[in-house]
């Protein structure tokens, strides 16, 4: 069934095909005339059977038969026996169609439809399936139907699991069998069936099983897929957890109305705010829904409002997101107050897979408010942020004492409560690592290297709360470097993974992070006040991931990388200056995460490839004027900037909600003379475009 070369048709075959087509056309014409005049006589129904026997792909004919059956069932003179015989006739037609093409969607669907009428015996179905699965053990239609039948007859998952095992023993290159195994195991684990109480008991055996396949034939993909699933089962913590927050627990937040440095407060925690509110950011380990004022309660002295609005920070418009933000208003008068945030004391925070957040946690911080003394816009307008090397000073050791140690350590939440339960996970990963090191000793194998890299990354992440460092990051980076050379076809994937590990490594410790922290010019006169600039430039990053420890960053330099997407950046709610210059961003839609950054004032996207391609091809989903969500938002402003929406809807969509003072866009295809006025029109707040002061 698989791997058979296609033969060129011989002349006599072609003649036969022509004859067949002629016959088929005649049949079809007659069939349609019956169908259109709703004739369901015996002859008419038989004609459709004949048609389907030749061409099982005729969906209309299948639907016609369904109508014919319904028609028959609605007759007053039909009795249970005749119903049964009519349905059996249908099964017969399906069977002969499947003999013609056992991968006919229409035929399998029709069979399901007939069976779900509930009048036919199911026992025959498994026998039929055995025949089909013997003929082609990888026929996924048969496997799908098998799941349907076994559910219908309440066949136990354990029996089915045994069946997958038998099929795998016959030939382990069977994606369908491995897949069904993962489906069945998930179901058994969820039910906590006997012998399947916990992953801890089930997964080691499965690992043992899949090793046999992987070691026997590392070139076979099917086993690797299953291994990836097992790895996911091992690494993924089902329950949502809070990974980090801003403000961090125990921190002091200095809220200033103007941008002058205030005393010796920590740059990690001082925030300029001209809107009279500051964000509270919750960063979970996976996308969750249900974060609201009823699931997150805030105790503070200055804001008694109960209905704080929590907003999901997700690019798509779904109500599920990994990062959530709420804006807490603070009074304009001088204030020192503590805030306590409690997350998850009611059970409504739920992961995408339906697991509840069940580790209620509380964090508190102190807020110090300095009242606004001047009109903030006066100061900021004049300031031109230049991302030149000479404008940055190493935020070196002389300044280190000014950073409260605690502030870094508390950027991330330690989830001690999970550690005891995770021992088996760590053990399982350690065992896998050993196993794949062994495989790589035997042979050079790309997927083996990739798996080892994944394993080491997961292992480091799991051990991080205990080891406080990523022990294997150097090795992982080396592996990805190797893979990029070995397997150029998947270079971009490896690059993304590489970037992610590199970012994790840099943010994993205070020492490594400080190497990338700089102070912008002489900060006293600076418009950005006390802010440290985190410079992650020239690292050939292609993705922005692992941002959970960077929630405090207000000035970020990501220039001279290879970014094609900035997904995830929306989590950095405090960002006010961002440099994305000299990257590989190809469209304005790739900038969509910026829409969520309400504090962003200075943006550099110069020297990218924006305009080369109208949509962000690195993502599957993109917004377009046709998509429902965008359209709705546009409608409101339609009358305002009609001409803009027509030609520059992406620009309008991305920039409309931003309050930028300064934008650098030079060096992109899109940035021609026609475009600049559009930008000015979209962003009335803009004061400086490509270094030029606007009126």
């Amino acid at each position, binding site marked *: 069934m698989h791997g058979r070369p296609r033969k060129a048709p011989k002349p006599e075959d072609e003649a036969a095909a022509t004859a067949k087509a002629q016959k088929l056309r005649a049949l079809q014409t007659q069939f349609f005339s019956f169908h259109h005049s709703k004739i369901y006589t015996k002859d008419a129904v038989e004609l459709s059977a004949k048609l389907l026997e030749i061409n099982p792909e005729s969906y209309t004919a299948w639907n016609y038969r369904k109508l014919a059956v319904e028609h028959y069932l609605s007759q007053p003179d039909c009795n249970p026996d005749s119903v049964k015989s009519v349905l059996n006739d249908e099964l017969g037609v399906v069977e002969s169609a499947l003999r013609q093409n056992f991968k006919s969607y229409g035929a399998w669907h029709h069979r399901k439809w007939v069976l779900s009428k509930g009048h036919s015996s199911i026992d025959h179905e498994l026998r039929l399936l055995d025949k089909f699965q013997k003929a082609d053990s990888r026929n996924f239609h048969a496997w799908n139907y098998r799941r349907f039948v076994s559910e219908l007859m309440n066949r136990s998952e354990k029996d089915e699991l045994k069946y997958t095992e038998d099929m795998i023993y016959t*030939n*382990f290159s069977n994606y369908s069998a491995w897949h069904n195994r993962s489906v069945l195991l998930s179901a058994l684990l969820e039910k906590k069936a006997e012998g399947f109480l916990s992953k801890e008991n089930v997964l080691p055996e499965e690992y043992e099983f899949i*090793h*046999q*396949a992987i*070691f*026997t034939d590392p070139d076979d993909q099917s086993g690797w897929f299953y291994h990836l699933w097992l790895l996911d089962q091992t690494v993924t913590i089902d329950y949502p957890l809070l990974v980090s927050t801003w403000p961090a627990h125990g921190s002091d937040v200095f809220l200033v109305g103007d941008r002058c440095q205030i005393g010796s407060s920590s740059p990690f925690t001082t925030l300029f705010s001209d809107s009279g509110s500051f964000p509270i950011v919750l960063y979970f380990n996976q996308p969750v829904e249900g974060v609201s004022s009823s699931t997150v309660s805030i105790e503070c002295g200055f804001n008694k409002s109960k209905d704080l609005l929590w907003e999901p920070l997700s690019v798509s418009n779904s109500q599920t997101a990994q990062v959530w933000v709420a804006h807490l208003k603070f009074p304009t008068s001088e204030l020192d107050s503590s805030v306590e945030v409690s997350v998850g004391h009611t059970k409504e925070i739920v992961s995408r897979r339906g697991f509840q957040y069940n580790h209620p946690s509380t964090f508190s911080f102190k807020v110090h408010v300095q009242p606004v003394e001047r009109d903030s816009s006066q100061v900021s307008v004049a300031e031109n942020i230049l991302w030149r090397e000479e404008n940055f000073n190493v935020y070196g050791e002389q300044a280190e004492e000014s950073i409260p140690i605690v502030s870094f350590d508390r950027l991330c939440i330690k989830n001690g409560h999970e550690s005891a339960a995770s021992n088996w996970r760590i053990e399982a990963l350690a065992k896998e690592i050993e*196993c794949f090191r*062994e495989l790589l000793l*035997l042979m050079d194998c790309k997927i083996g290297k990739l798996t080892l890299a994944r394993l080491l990354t997961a292992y480091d992440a799991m051990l991080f709360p205990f080891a406080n460092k990523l022990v294997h990051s150097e090795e992982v980076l080396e592996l990805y470097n190797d893979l990029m050379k070995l397997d150029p076809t998947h270079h971009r994937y490896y690059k993304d993974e590489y970037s992610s590990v590199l970012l994790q490594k840099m943010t994993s410790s205070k020492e490594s992070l400080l190497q990338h922290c700089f102070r912008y010019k002489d900060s006293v006169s600076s418009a950005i006040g006390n802010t440290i600039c985190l410079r992650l430039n020239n690292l050939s990053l292609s993705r922005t991931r692992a941002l959970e420890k960077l929630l405090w960053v207000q000035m970020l330099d990501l220039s001279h990388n290879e970014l094609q997407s900035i997904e995830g950046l929306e989590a950095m709610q405090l960002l006010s200056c961002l440099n994305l210059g000299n990257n590989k961003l190809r469209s304005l839609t790739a900038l969509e995460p910026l829409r969520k950054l309400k504090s962003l004032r200075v943006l550099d996207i110069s020297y990218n490839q924006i305009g080369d391609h109208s949509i962000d091809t690195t993502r599957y989903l993109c917004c377009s004027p046709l998509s429902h969500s965008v359209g709705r938002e546009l409608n409101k402003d339609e009358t305002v900037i009609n001409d803009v929406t027509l030609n520059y809807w992406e620009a309008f969509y991305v920039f409309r909600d931003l309050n930028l003072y300064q934008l650098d866009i030079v060096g992109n295809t899109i940035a021609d003379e026609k475009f600049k006025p559009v930008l000015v029109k979209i962003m009335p707040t803009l004061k400086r475009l490509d270094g030029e002061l606007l009126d």
Partner: protein
Amino acid sequence: MDDIPPYPPIDPTTFDLIVIGTGLPESIIAAAASTASKSVLHLDPNPFYGSHFCSIPLADLPSFLSTHSTSPSPPYQQSSDESNEFSVLGLSTRPLYSSIDITRFSPDLLDKNSRKFNLDVAGPRVFFCADKSIELILNTGANQYMEFKSIDATFVGDNKGNFSSVPDSRAAIFKDKSLGLTEKNQLMRFFKLVKGHLAGEQDVKISDEDLQSPFVDFLNKMGLPPKIKSFILYAIAMADYDQEDTGVCRDLLKTKDGIDQLALYNASIGRFQNASGALLYPIYGQGELSQAFCRRAAVKGCIYVLRMSVTALLVDKDSGCYMGIRLASGQDIFSQKLIIDPTFKVTLPSGSSPPLPLPLQGKLPFFSQKDDRGKIARGICLTRTSLKTDMSNFLVVYPPRSLFPEQVTSIRLLQIASNLAVCPPGMFVLYISALCDDEDQGKKLIHAVMTTVLTVPRINSESNAAAQNETAGSSSTGTSDPGEGKPTLLWSALYSQELTLGQVDFICSTPMPDGKLNYDDLVDAADKLFKEIYPEDEFFPQTSSKNPEDDDDGDGSPET
């Protein structure tokens, strides 16, 4: 053979070819010659087909073995009234079997069922699904007369009675629980290398230098661990002698041949839909095979006369050339060519009555000479339980040194159950064989396997004292305590067989059953012999273009 009914004289009296003995090579040649439109007379002194390749009832086995273990039958009485045209040379048989040791531990049970046994005299022997013999059977249509069943599995045995299954395919390697992960990887990679080499892939070519080197060296070079090497050498390539001891090894396998063996094994797996493993065995025993070719020959006009002994050769007085034979019935039959099995020998006329034709004098010593190619020790054992609880038909290989340090050849054991119609229901036949230099060594090899896998009951001293002495003397049987869970031996026959090759001389002779596991060498020998005597003719010309794959070893084919 006293009750031979009188035969009508054979007519015609002149043939292109006379074949004496219905062993496999003789039957193949008879069929090939008949197919090539030769007139053929095929004779056998026995009342059954197969000669030394026969499958016979239990009760007949002892007499068959002993008939061929004693010295010549009474020499032909030369009569004085010979015609002047030819000399008559008496023909007798020489012993083929020696050191026969038949022991019964359960008398009554076996007597009742004696006729239900079809015991192979030259066992163990099987087919590889893709070997030349199967090809020949399919090509000649001999498969119409027989049915096959698959041998379930191949194992490697050790001296503790354990069997390790031979991971002979991708699925088997995956499933095997005794192999470590590294071993699985190494073995599969080796298989892939061989497969790639055979498919002619450039990047996986095995160098000529490697191909000419000993296979065992190549396996070492590939870094395969001893266990896997042993699997490949002895259970897949079926090497007979210890490949790692050049001192004792008489058939050092070259990489090229080893790879061909692997290819054969690989091609055998999955060739027929109904056959799960690589090996096949004919229902009713291997005697069916000779019979199938005889039937095939008969269809093409070959004349068969069983129970007919040949007493003498007729040779031209002047030239010493072969002319014909004299039957036990007294009739003289003439032919151009003669093929006999090599157990026959010409008895030199005692005295000087008719002087031997000169040209023949020089040849006779050679013709009656016994070649020294060693022997093969064979054993047949009967049990009532299978050696493996979940399986009935399987092969076990004991590689050299696996049972005791001095074991230089591999020993093969084939268990066949009643579903192959070789024994009554509920019983199992074990065929064991090993190459050896002499009877004692052979007996030791067979005994070593028997004591490893079977419980050998204490022999009733009255019944067979002689046998007991021999048993006790040649092996360390001792007293096997029952209750070890090993099957109990009911009956056993141990014997040694001479190994003789066929010869092409003024008379051609076919080879005797060899020490191989399959029939390919015998088929080759028959092919070669046929080409010697009929260089003009084709050995079974390809008749139709039918696809052999369609001729499954299925259930539908007619059975004799």
